[in-house]
């Protein structure tokens, strides 16, 4: 019985860690509707403004984090190495500067909450009132 419960608990735990879901977040004052295409364009430096004309500033998580790899693959549709190769093309042609990187969900929340221009992504479980989830 105990064994069964343990297995169940393990399964539950495993499921919840698989479900560790990333969400794109913006400042609560940001009223723009964003679809995944627009988020992709902002994070690839192709769009520098939101639909309402305000500046958009993307904030990345550091390259060695799981959430960054998940974001690159799920939202940008490429591996982190490919994204890095993409930026190397832009940086050395003076055409773009990659998004600033921070190393935790808390830092993303901090930046997003202080500046209506900032857009980032965090784990759903980290979400606080200081940020607004972008439903894509």
């Amino acid at each position: 019985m105990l064994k069964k419960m343990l297995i169940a608990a393990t399964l539950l735990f495993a499921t919840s860690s698989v479900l560790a879901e990333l969400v794109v977040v913006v400042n609560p004052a940001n009223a723009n509707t964003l679809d995944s295409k627009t988020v992709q364009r902002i994070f690839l430096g192709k769009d520098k403004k939101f639909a309402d004309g305000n500046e958009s500033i993307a904030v990345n998580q550091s390259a060695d984090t799981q959430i960054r790899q998940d974001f690159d693959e799920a939202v940008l549709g490429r591996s982190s190495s490919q994204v890095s190769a993409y930026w190397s093309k832009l940086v050395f042609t003076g055409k773009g500067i990659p998004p600033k990187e921070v190393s935790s969900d808390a830092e993303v929340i901090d930046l997003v909450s202080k500046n209506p221009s900032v857009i980032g992504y965090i784990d759903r479980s980290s979400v606080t009132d200081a940020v607004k989830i972008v439903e894509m």
Partner: protein
Amino acid sequence: MNKLNKKLSVITLAVLATFQAQAEIRINGFANLTAGITSSDETLYGYDDSIGFASQSLFAIQVSGDISDKVTATGQIVARGDNDYAADFEWAYFTYEAADNISMSAGRLRAPLFRYSASSDVAYSYHWVVAPQSVYDVPFNNIDGIRVDYSGYTGDLEYTFQLTAGRIESDFILSGATASLTVDNTVGLSGDFVYNNWKFRGVYLTGKTTFDIPDLEPTFGLLSQLSADLSEQLRAKDDTGVFYGGSIEYDAFDWFVAGEYTAVEVENSFYPDEVNYYVTAGFRTGKWTPFVTYEKSDLNNTPKFLSDISGLPAAFQPGATQIVVGTQQLAVSENNTISVGTRYELETNIALKADVVKQSDDIGELDSTLIRFAVNYVF
């Protein structure tokens, strides 16, 4: 006095703070260390049958700073192994962001000739060990002038247009002879289009082209005694030169196929019409990107101006033919290159690569095989 000092230091601090706030300096760099060895006496890309490290290696630093909200200054210093790692300012330009989708750059910059023009030195940005030399190894990569970039999108179609104007000056070697190339009044337009997994590109560039080759002057002088007109035809001096090209790419992320085609024509000159292209394909599996590339370079055509010779007095014809054909022969070449290799992602900013290159010379019937290993780094 003390008070003044205090005031001064406050001012200094304020100025410093403003300066730091305004002039954000970014330093980026890239490095390609490429080792190579050929299997026989033949040399290829500067490598021979004892292992060499320099020929296709380079180290570069790029410094850019925001002068104002809209103006950025960029300088790129490159040290190339085939130039004894002497550091050269290859690019130095100002960019003015006129609007979100329009920027203007002025100074010494890269002409938008190829799919990977801007980053052809940043080997990290592509899968090859070195961008296919049949297409990318041209002596007119950089231009002194201006470039206007315009980009935008409609629906799923993204586009970038680049209009370039200026002057190209560069030294190169033609068949062992030192030569210098000048292209005045260069004007070029390129368009890049991305539609879902597809990428398309087209480019057209033209300018008044002059090849200055001291070793050839006596020959041109000799010919002008037989026919001044023919000598002028053969000489490349202020002649209209044209460069055009296109590329197509399909990238399904797990695999990709791409091809690029370029052509050079300097009609009223000894320089043969040139056609170069490559086709490449690869797939991405985890950290590995194995690939294969086929390249062709063709500067092998029927000699020009033969009909002009038939108009000369019969006694002049043999001598004129010898010069006209002989001069054109200098630039003639035709070869095929096949390379098979792989890229491996060591870290997010370091890639390791290896390939085997086999080049067949269709004229001299010579084959050379080269093995290369490379470390590509960006920071």
